[in-house]
């Protein structure tokens, strides 16, 4: 019966498709759309920054008429208008520009990172080759020195755990990422069947934690809270689940109370949570962007921005990394930081000239992020401070635009 169906299906698809004839697109059409895409990658951020500036005035007006913003349940983000601290010595690009050419060179990354596919570079400058079964796509490090390598083979992701002595465990089915708690004492990933797996620092094997979330074709591990996960340790693991039929996202929470949808906050996608009870995530997703919200308990007011995706908290939970609100998968051309009051500390975006982009940024400490950035045929690891100043943590090396030679650990 299946053969009947598939052959009928193939025939029907071919008939439908072949009725769609005629070539109507010309090179000028394509170049026009290409210019539009290029402008959107680089200039949307400019428009967004202008819009944020424009918001400052209305907010001030509201404050004047309401005696402050306390009556506003979800105030928008604002922009820092205080003078910037003195940037590091050496060339700095124009304010607002993500231009990583000719930056001063600072310290090497203060976290381990991977280069050339499998060369792990330690903070003391030493290097070691990592011999995972499959190529590495991302990784996280636990406090005891355990490495959780996310690898991939034929488009299927795995987790390969390497204990502090260097012994590598066999690949285990996984989603495309691992997550670690803030103190790096536990890591977690989610299997394709929805089962959350955890690995505590000092452990010798993974723990299947609680009941699985609904199986889906797209499961993304979210923030992990608590010091450890297991029968005697309680933790909270979040998983963003793409509903099978509609594709709509819903965060789930796995903890001592069971496995259930996370409805608080109305998040469509939970990005990060802090130990102090704050959370960030996308609450609205549109064709041209998204809106992200910071929420907290009690009197904490939080804020919402549609200019950036609120991506992650700094390790101390006091700052928030912002990435483009519209993420089309070609790399991020904009980076920003906010404080918990919703003040944007800086915003840098690539320009038509620089075309700079980065695949992902990670916190190095409480006030700095590191990002592998591509510009002018070269990759570098750039350190960006909370005042927006930049320096090379790893100077530029030649490379292809879609293949970053550096992988930073998930923090």
């Amino acid at each position, binding site marked *: *019966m*299946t053969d*009947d*169906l*598939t052959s*009928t*299906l*193939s*025939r*029907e*698809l*071919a*008939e*439908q*498709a*072949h*009725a*769609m*004839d*005629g*070539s*109507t*697109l*010309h*090179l000028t*059409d*394509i*170049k026009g*759309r*290409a210019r*539009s*895409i*290029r402008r959107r990658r680089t200039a949307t951020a400019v428009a967004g920054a202008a819009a944020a500036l424009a918001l400052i005035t209305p907010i001030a007006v509201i404050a004047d008429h309401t005696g402050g913003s306390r009556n506003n349940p979800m105030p928008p983000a604002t922009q820092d208008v205080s003078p910037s601290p003195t940037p590091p010595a050496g060339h700095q690009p124009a304010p607002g520009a993500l231009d990583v050419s000719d930056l001063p060179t600072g310290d090497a990354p203060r976290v381990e990172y991977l280069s050339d596919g499998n060369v792990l570079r330690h903070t003391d400058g030493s290097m070691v080759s990592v011999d995972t079964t499959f190529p590495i796509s991302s990784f996280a490090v636990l406090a005891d020195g355990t490495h959780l390598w996310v690898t991939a083979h*034929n*488009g*299927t*992701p795995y987790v390969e755990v390497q204990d502090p002595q260097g012994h590598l465990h066999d690949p285990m089915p996984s989603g495309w990422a691992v997550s670690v708690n803030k103190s790096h004492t536990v890591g977690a990933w989610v299997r*394709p069947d929805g089962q959350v797996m955890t690995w505590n620092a000092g452990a010798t094997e993974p723990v299947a934690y609680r009941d699985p979330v609904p199986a889906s*074709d797209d499961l993304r591990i979210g923030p992990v809270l608590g010091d450890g996960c297991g029968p005697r340790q309680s933790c909270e693991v979040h998983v963003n689940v793409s509903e*099978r*039929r*509609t*594709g*709509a*996202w819903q965060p789930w929470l796995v903890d001592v109370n069971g496995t259930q949808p996370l409805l608080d906050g109305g998040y469509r996608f939970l990005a990060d949570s802090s130990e102090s009870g704050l959370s960030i995530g996308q609450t609205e*997703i*549109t*064709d*041209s*962007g*998204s809106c992200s919200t910071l929420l907290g308990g009690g009197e904490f007011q939080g804020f919402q921005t549609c200019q950036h995706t609120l991506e992650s908290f700094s390790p101390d939970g006091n700052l928030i990394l912002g990435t483009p609100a*519209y*993420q*089309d*998968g*070609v790399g991020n051309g904009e980076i920003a930081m906010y404080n918990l009051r919703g003040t944007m500390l800086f915003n840098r975006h690539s320009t038509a000239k620089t075309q700079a982009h980065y695949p992902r940024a990670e916190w190095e400490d409480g006030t700095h992020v590191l990002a592998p950035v591509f510009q002018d045929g070269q990759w570098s690891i750039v350190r960006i401070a909370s005042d927006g100043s930049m320096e090379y943590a790893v100077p530029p090396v030649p490379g*292809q*635009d*879609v293949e970053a030679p550096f992988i930073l650990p998930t923090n």
Partner: protein
Amino acid sequence: MDRPPADGTGTVAVADRRGARDADFAAYLAARQPSLLRTAYLLTGNRHDAEDLVQTAFAKLYLSWDRVRSHGSMDAYVRRILVNEHNSLWRRAWKKREHSAEEETLRRFDRPHHDEPDDGTGSALWEVVQTLPRKARAVVVLRYYEEMSEAETAAVLGISVGTVKSQASRALATLRERAPHTLDPRAREENDR
């Protein structure tokens, strides 16, 4: 990879290089557009969205032309852009929100004309294919129209082979359930008379 210099001096004017690059791309565009448009139509279900999708896919290819051409992987690259652009979270969310009755009406009137008589079973199947979730429809199109293997389909969609299998299996089950007439031999015989 640039073409060798025309004058043998080792220097080629930038404008000439751009011209040669555009000529190469235009030739590729002309050659591949029809088949990509057909695939896009199967993914989107209407000509307007299909052309829009193809234009975006070719534009992104144009932006990466030098790199992709040097790898000789243009077909795979542009097909991957096409499918993933169609599946992207953002577009999907917008489509779901904005999908209106008016759009549906337009969609119903915007179907290709068939010269061959239709026994009705095929169209019923096509109707159901169009109701499949986007990822499942992409799997169906790549597997049963493009005739890709499960591994090739997985590579294009950036998902596992297991996911391709499960998506295809569920899609076929849905088609069997919603278009049983298509597979009923008696019904086919009646239609053949």
